[in-house]
């Protein structure tokens, strides 16, 4: 019980502290706040990819990095001036950002499918999900 309450309090403190980053960089109406959030998320994903031993953890970290890139795309698209429309079709530049983000999402889904099935295939041979025990090439 005490652990649950303490964990909740700790989690809310962390959330508020990290949320202050969002306000300090200008809130929801400034481009730099989106870029700041995305760069921090990308760094978190990079750390997870480099530091974790479990192959699935590394794949989850890759997903975090892909989401950070998507956030950058959406952030830039939502602050584009209207003058950057396509001169031939007059297409909405903000909509193009959404389309790019959706395509990135589809590619991320394909990547997750193939990556997880590769991990499952390796797991069937090596009986471990830890990447530092995949040392067949070392011997």
């Amino acid at each position, binding site marked *: 019980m005490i652990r649950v309450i303490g964990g909740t309090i700790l989690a809310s403190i962390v*959330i508020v502290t*990290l949320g202050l980053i969002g306000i300090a960089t200008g809130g929801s109406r400034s481009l730099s706040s989106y870029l700041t959030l995305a760069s921090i998320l990308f760094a978190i994903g990079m750390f997870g990819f480099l530091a974790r031993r479990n192959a699935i953890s590394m794949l*989850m970290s890759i997903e975090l990095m892909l989401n950070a890139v998507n956030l950058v795309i959406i952030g830039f698209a939502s602050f584009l001036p209207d003058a950057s429309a396509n001169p031939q079709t007059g297409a909405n530049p*903000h909509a193009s950002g959404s389309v790019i983000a959706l395509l990135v999402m589809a590619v991320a889904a394909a990547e997750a499918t193939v990556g997880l099935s590769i991990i499952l295939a390796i797991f069937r041979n090596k009986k471990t999900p830890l990447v530092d025990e995949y040392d067949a090439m070392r011997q």
Partner: protein
Amino acid sequence: MTLPSTVPILGIPWADILFALFAGTMLASGLAVVVMRDIIRCGLAMMVCFGALAGIYVMAGAPLVGAAQVLVYIGAISVLVLFAIMLTQTKTAPTRLAFQTQAIPAAIASVVLVVVVLLAIGSTAWGATADQRATDTSAVATVLFSDWVLPFEVVGVLLLAAVIGGVFLAKRERGKDVLE
């Protein structure tokens, strides 16, 4: 009775409070994904992170991307990851050592990266940024099926190839397990 447009005492707009809440949830659960030892909890924290990110997309004026985030990431990819976690958990696998020996250099590299990128963001003058505006979904549809129709079709082929490749790779080879 209507709410005032800013928070009464602090003078901060409500949108900023919501944005900070989403941002804090996203970053905290993202940290939880990479530092927690129990990998099932990592997967659940990843779902929370994607949900908060969907909220940020909606606040950035891209509601369709937010909906697709919920459908694709929380609905599909997280479930896939959780299934893979359950399929690869062994009783003999050590859960104590979650990190490799290179964790400290990795942490230093990540902090250096974030500091460099933040300095670059802060020192760049984003000259011609317009006011933020929402994207209406019909405009997304128009653009998707006029300017972006070729990438759309190519992504469809890519997804088909990925599904077939995934089935082929994860398929149990017949007779091999019996021999072992």
